[in-house]
């Protein structure tokens, strides 16, 4: 088994609709039932981020995301899958359920 990160890509300030939330819950339940579930979560808007640099004597805190872009990551799943083909199928289902594009990326093995 390998682990993959499915990042949910978002390009507006809209939150998920009630319908989308219900679909995501159903997908999560399915992932758990099939043994693919590791962890998942939604993230607050990029405006709530703080960049922290603790490499020096005094840590420096800077307001805002480290990179300004039209798109950002709004949530993620971490899944267990034996190979990319199955992970791709799960990512496609995840994309359909949350109604957004996703990026699939393997963890270092």
């Amino acid at each position, binding site marked *: 088994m390998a682990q993959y990160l499915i990042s949910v890509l978002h390009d507006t300030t809209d939150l998920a609709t009630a319908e989308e939330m219900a679909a995501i819950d159903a997908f999560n339940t399915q992932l758990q039932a099939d043994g693919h579930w590791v962890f998942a979560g939604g993230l607050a808007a990029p405006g709530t981020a703080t960049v922290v640099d603790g490499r020096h004597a005094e840590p420096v805190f800077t307001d805002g995301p480290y990179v300004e872009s039209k798109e950002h990551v709004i949530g993620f799943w971490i899944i267990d899958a*034996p*190979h*990319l*083909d199955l*992970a*791709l199928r799960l990512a496609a289902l995840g994309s359909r359920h949350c109604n957004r594009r996703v990026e699939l990326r*393997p963890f270092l093995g």
Partner: protein
Amino acid sequence: MSDVGELITRVHRAEWARLVASLAGRFGDLDIAEEMAAEAFATAVERWPVDGVPPVPGAWLTTTAHRKAIDRLRREVRREEKHREALMLSAAAEPLGAIDDDRLRLVFTCCHPALAMEVRIALTLRMVGGLTVPEIARAFLVQETAMSRRITRAKAKIKAARIPYGVPLREDLPARVTGVLAVLYLIFNEGYLASDPGKEAVRADLTAEAIRLTRLVRALMPADGEVAGLLALMLLTEARRAARVSASGELVTLAEQDRGAWDRELIAEGHALVRARLASGQAPGRYQILAAINAVHTDARDVRDTDWSQVVALYNRLVRLDPSPIVRLNRAIAVAELDGPEVALAEVDGLPLEGYHAFHATRADLLRRLGRSEESRAAYDRAIGLAGNTAETAYLVRRRDQLAGA
């Protein structure tokens, strides 16, 4: 080159894909597979002239490469883990689909949709076709270092993302096979009209490998019309290979070919496939239409017997599926036979194909037939400047020099 050197070259062509595929199956790692296959051949170059050629060269290469791979894994720092990984991956490499052929698994792995199209072609040519990185780079008109990086990145992604080494499950097959066919067709074309001026004009090893792999895909998906169409297209094209380049190494056009030199067996097989597809009553795709066009050409005993109205009708269907300028250029060539060069030239002139040698070669021929020698000469010059294939260049130079007023 010595006799042994020539033999090693022949064995390389015959055994490369099989060797890489079996190493990939055993060790689950394309890097190790490729490097150890290359090392085994390097050892053969050293040993065979001294020790003599082994009775079964393929088996010798497999044994040598497998030993080298095991030695290398033992030397690795993370030896235990690698060993376990290799064993696990070879167990995971049990055939997922219906056919257990190492080379077909290698093809589906190299043609995985998670890889960019250009990467799929490059990887397939390297791992399955056995082309060198410089050869692939020239075929793609990119720098060798860029091509090398592209292939290295692709292999790293296959490993890290765990792209499975196998034929996909039946439910994933239809979506995956389209990309595989595109790659196989490009390999066939690279063999049929090699793009490299330093190479022989036709590379029968590549066309043969493309046909062999397409046959395997067809055995896997016998009901798929496009798989059958591509196989028929390749067979009907391959049937004319011997007649296509003259003894002096010059391209011979379809109209001038010695039709007695065509391979009747391949033509019969191609025609049977095309007839079976027509009888299915299903709407044909791109490869089936191209195969049908080639069936019309190979049906004619003499070029004068060619049913050009049928060829144009088939091109009309193809244009509806794929209105690209290259399809329209090929349609215009058939239109020239049916309606004359003037009508064809009017269609060709509007096409945005300035950088494509066949566009200028077609214009040159049409202008020649219209008696417009000076314009024809200029078009031949453009075509010669852009053509990469040796036989094609030789043909274009002769036609240019035969123009009136030369």
